[in-house]
Structure formats: structure tokens, C-alpha cells
């Protein structure tokens, strides 16, 4: 519709060389040799291809070897660079902030404005420092950290703010883990999130398809080193969390703040003093089909979805393999893995990960947003309960009447094996070497 607006006004895309398109939200994740069955999706994809051609934009289409979820391909292709400003018509654009880019999710009108002007009106947001300290226990991941933060500050806790994640925990995290933190800042209401770039950032980008090379690479790195957060940086709000004793987290309700540790029980309306909180909890429990006060580990599941811009990168797939190698998924549970990009898929296959998944009983699919947003054929049936590595557990998000529990890839994999939620720390987790990946892997 933004293209339509341009056409009506006789405008062009101002900088097609800096503008990229990709098909992700509605693409089927089955066999790419087959035609797209959903007529509306097919039309939408055709329209994007036509508009990209007309306005001179590179489009990674359905059949491109670089197709994938926009927030995964941007970084892996080196289009996401520190010090750049990035906009995309999707609220999870904050993901790119993990590279020290200012990355904003925008609407259609704002998208059209950027197309035409290469600029965006933005009031300076407030700044929130979320400082994380401590070392994550084995079995506890960046996903658990962000769910726990959202639980603590609420779905509106960071409205009007850019969140910066700082502290020794963040420095220890890999780039892909950092992306999980920035990805879900929107679920706490943040305008976006950002992390100071460091050597890990540069190493992730080195040799990426679109990243600078040769002398330009050296110049870029020199510039990027100047982007480090000042030691005396000032923030409007500062929060500090210690992650040393964090347990795996599981959402029980219908927004990402409705989260408990796997060792806790599902809350009861009586736990809340405020009348509207009580009502919200009651409504969520009813929708989710849960008994107040029941153990999280007594929740049985029907579906496991490993995918989305939150957790479908190579390291997430490796986490799944650490749990499921040599094990079988519960036969009654439908389990699917949707890699975040076709490149992630190929890399996983080069390592031999797909064999581990297929032997365990998982479906190994092609890339797209898939069951995170259920705009294609991948969706939950009415009342089906899913352990999902995605980012939103809103009512009907994964399909009409579907029930979503957001968890880490480790927890989702453990749930696939056991048919119910278990504390993944109690399982024997293989380390990466024990996976005996072809050619080896360095996180």
C-alpha cells in the first residue's frame, strides 16, 4: 500500500540502493517447488515482486537462496551495520539494534515517507538502561532473560523509551543471543533497543555478502569502534537485574508479561489485589485452559514450534540439537522447525543438524515467519497448546483458539521430548562438541 501511495503521487523510491525487500510473513514453509496455494498470499507476493522491480529495489523473493525472516537476513547478509539507521514495517525491527544500529519498526504511512524522502520524523525518545550482571546458569538463555525482564517491567514498562542493554552479562552473550534481547524489547513497549558494538559484532559481519570489504572494512571497523557507549552515559531510567539465579521462563497467559519460572505455579486471580488485574488473569487462564495454581510442569502440550525472528538462528538450532540428539519427540506432539532463513537452513544442513532433528521426529521446513504469526498454512487448531520459541502469546496469534507458551529453544525442545513442560536443567544437555557436527562449529 505504501507503493500504491507513491504511484498515486507520482513519487519514486528516493534511494533504491539502500532499500531491500524480502518475502517472509506469509510464505509457505513447505516444498518450494510447489505452487503457493493461498491465493491471497500469492497475490501479495506477486505484488511485492512487481513493486520492487518497478521501483528498482532488490527483492529476496520466495525462491531466493537468501530468503528468510527480514530480521535474520539483514544481519547475516551484512545489511545491518553498526552506526546505521534502519527502518522496517515490522515491530520486531529492534532486533537489528544488537549491532549498534538505531532500528525502528514503523507503519505503512511512515514507510511511504521513508521511501519518498529517505528520512523519518522522530521525537527523541527517552533512554532506559537495562544493566544485566552475572553469568547465565547452564540451561538458561537470553530468551529467559528477556521474558523475565518483561515480566518485571510489564508490557508498557518501556513505552516511549529506547532500551540499551549493558553490563557484563550482555558482553558475554553471543551476537545471536543479543538479538533475542533486542528483538523482544517491543514486548515491553520499547520504541527500540540497542547494544554497544564490540569485536563480536564485527566478527559476525566480516565476510557477509553486503558487508564492506578490503580498505572499506578497515575504515568501517575503525568508525564502529568509536560507537562504544560512554562510561558516563546518562539515562532517563536505569534498571539493574542480576541473572545468576535465573531459572528457565514459561509464559502462562496471553501477553509476554504473563510469565513464570518453570519451577513456579501458574498464578491465581487471588494472587492479585487490583480488580482489573484479577479480571485479566481470569480471562487469560480461561483462554489458556489452565487451572489456577497448577504446576507449570503439569502442562501438557500438543505442538512445538521452533522458529521466528526471536529464536531461529543457527545457535538456536544447535540448542535444540543439544536436547534432542539421540532422543525422540513424544509421538502425539506435532513438532516443526522453521529455520530463520534459507542460509541458516543450508548452514544447519552442512553441519548435519537436520539429520538429528529428522531422526528425533521433527519436521524440517523452509524459512518464513510461519507459526509465529500464522499468516500461512502453519497454524494451531482451536484449543491446541504450543511450546513456541516465538515472541507473542496474544490470543489467536498462532491460529484461532490456539494457546501459546513462549519459551527458549532449549525448553521447547525438552517439551517436545517429554510432551509437557520440564525444567531443561534437569535433563542431560549435550555440549556442542558432543553433537559431532560436520566441520565443527564455533559459537
Amino acid at each position: 500500500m505504501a507503493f500504491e501511495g507513491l504511484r498515486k503521487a507520482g513519487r519514486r523510491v528516493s534511494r533504491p540502493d539502500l532499500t531491500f525487500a524480502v518475502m517472509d510473513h506469509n510464505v509457505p514453509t513447505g516444498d518450494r517447488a510447489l505452487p503457493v496455494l493461498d491465493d491471497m498470499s500469492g497475490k501479495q507476493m506477486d505484488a511485492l515482486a512487481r513493486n520492487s522491480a518497478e521501483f528498482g529495489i532488490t527483492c529476496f523473493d520466495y525462491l531466493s537462496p537468501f530468503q528468510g525472516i527480514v530480521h535474520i537476513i539483514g544481519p547475516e547478509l551484512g545489511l545491518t551495520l553498526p552506526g546505521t539507521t534502519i527502518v522496517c514495517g515490522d515491530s520486531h525491527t529492534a532486533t537489528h539494534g544488537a549491532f549498534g544500529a538505531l532500528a525502528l519498526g514503523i507503519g505503512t504511512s511512515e514507510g511511504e515517507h521513508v521511501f519518498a524522502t529517505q528520512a523519518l520524523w522522530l521525537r527523541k525518545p527517552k533512554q532506559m538502561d537495562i544493566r544485566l550482571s552475572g553469568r547465565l546458569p547452564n540451561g538458561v538463555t537470553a530468551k529467559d532473560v528477556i521474558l523475565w525482564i518483561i515480566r518485571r517491567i510489564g508490557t508498557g514498562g518501556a513505552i516511549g523509551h529506547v532500551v540499551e542493554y549493558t553490563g557484563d552479562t550482555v558482553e558475554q552473550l553471543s551476537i545471536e543471543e543479543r538479538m533475542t534481547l533486542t528483538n523482544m524489547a517491543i514486548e515491553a513497549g520499547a520504541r527500540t533497543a540497542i547494544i554497544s558494538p564490540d569485536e563480536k559484532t564485527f566478527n559476525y559481519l566480516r565476510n557477509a555478502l553486503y558487508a564492506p570489504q578490503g580498505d572499506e572494512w578497515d575504515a568501517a571497523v575503525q568508525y564502529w569502534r568509536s560507537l562504544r557507549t560512554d562510561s558516563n552515559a546518562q539515562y532517563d531510567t536505569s534498571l539493574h537485574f542480576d541473572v545468576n539465579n535465573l531459572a528457565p521462563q514459561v509464559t502462562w497467559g496471553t501477553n509476554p508479561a504473563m510469565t513464570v519460572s518453570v519451577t513456579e505455579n501458574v498464578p491465581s486471580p487471588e494472587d492479585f489485589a487490583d480488580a482489573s488485574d484479577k479480571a485479566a488473569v481470569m480471562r487469560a487462564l480461561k483462554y489458556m485452559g489452565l487451572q489456577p495454581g497448577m504446576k507449570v510442569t503439569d502442562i501438557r502440550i500438543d505442538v512445538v514450534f521452533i522458529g521466528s525472528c526471536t529464536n531461529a538462528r543457527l545457535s538456536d538450532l544447535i540448542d535444540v540439537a543439544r536436547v534432542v540428539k539421540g532422543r525422540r519427540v513424544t509421538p502425539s506432539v506435532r513438532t516443526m522447525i522453521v529455520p530463520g532463513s534459507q542460509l541458516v537452513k543450508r548452514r544447519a544442513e552442512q553441519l548435519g543438524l537436520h539429520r538429528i532433528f529428522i531422526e528425533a521426529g521433527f519436521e524440517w521446513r523452509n524459512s518464513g515467519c510461519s507459526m509465529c504469526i500464522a499468516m500461512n498454512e502453519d497454524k494451531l487448531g482451536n484449543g491446541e497448546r504450543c511450546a513456541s520459541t516465538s515472541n507473542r502469546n496474544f490470543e489467536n496469534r498462532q491460529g484461532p483458539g490456539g494457546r501459546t507458551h513462549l519459551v527458549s529453544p532449549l525448553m521447547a525442545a525438552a517439551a517436545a521430548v517429554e510432551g509437557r513442560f520440564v525444567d531443561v536443567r534437569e535433563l542431560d544437555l549435550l555440549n556442542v562438541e558432543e553433537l559431532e557436527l560436520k566441520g565443527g562449529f564455533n559459537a
Partner: protein
Amino acid sequence: MPEPVREVVGKAAPLEADDVDTDQIIPAQFLKVIERDGLGRYLFYRWRYDEQGKPVQGFVLDREEFRGAGILVVGRNFGIGSSRENAVWALMDAGIKCVIATSFGDIFYNNASKNGLLCVKLSGESVKHLREKAKSGTLSLTVSLDDQVVNYLDGKIPFEIETHIKERLRSGLDDIAMTLSMYKSKIKHYEEKMPTFLMPKARRSPLE
């Protein structure tokens, strides 16, 4: 281009819910519709229709006493979640011209201002007060953007709004034309200063 907004007059309908995300305002399956007009029929679809698409009794906007309501009084964190502008279009297509809440999702709030949907932020207490009054189905509000005040029969509540949002709503201007007329040379100047190492250049054809 949106119509200029200076004042919204209309019946208020109460929607007693916090954290209403844009997935609830319009489910993703309707994002594939390539038209803006007519999206109102998908507004709050899952709350208004069952799985077979049959209307569910009792949703506030479908009740006789709230027919034609132009103002929605909600709770806190309205419009959080996905950036879909369709949420704004669906509300407006259903005749909603103003939403009153304690707080809004940032992207929704911006999208609303670009389309002439007035979002008014009031204290939790005021929102609750108006929502309770609206339950009768007879609360008529006059929301003056010029004076920044919500007027009703036996009272008025002032509100704050960011100057640039107010001006954008009042002018109904084409943002793009305004930006280009005022800032084209500045944008060009900035672009000329951008280091070339930040420009994406494929090291080989992406089609190889």
C-alpha cells in the same frame, strides 16, 4: 491524506480491557487484504465472531446502545504489539474517530496520528470514570483538540498532547510534501556526508 482534525464529537463506547494488542484489533489473517476500505468488518474480529464466522452476542460495539459510537474508551497500553497500520484503518473504517486510554503502544500512536485518528491520554482514574459513565450508552463527548479538553454534560477533563502530533492532526497535511519542501536540501547534504563504507555493496551477485 487525512482530513484535518480539530474536534471529535460522538458517543463513547467502553472497552474494559488493558493491553489490547494490534493482533486483537485486527488479526493477521486480514493483513493480506490489499485494500484499506472495508477493514472495519474485521475490527476486533476474534472477539466479535466465532470460529464459523458467526457473530458472538454482546461485544460492546455490536450492542444497540453503542451503535454509531465514534469514541472508544479503553484501558492502559492500547495498541501494543505489531506495527500493522491496518489496526488504525480498521478502527477508522468502523467509525471510530478518537480513542481515550491511559497509554498507547508507540507505533500505534504514531500510525494513528498519520491517519487522523485522535488518541487522547488521560489518567487511569479519568479513563475509568469515563468508561463507567459510558456504560449507560448515553455518554456523548466533545473532544476538542484545539483546547485540549474532553467535554461532557457534567464535566470536562483537560489532556496533554505532543505539539507535533497536535499540529499534524490539525493540519491534515501530506507529511511527505512537507518534508520535501522544507528539508530536501538538508537530507541531500546529509546523504552526501554518509561514508561509502556504510553503503551496501554485494561482493558477488546475490543470484549466484
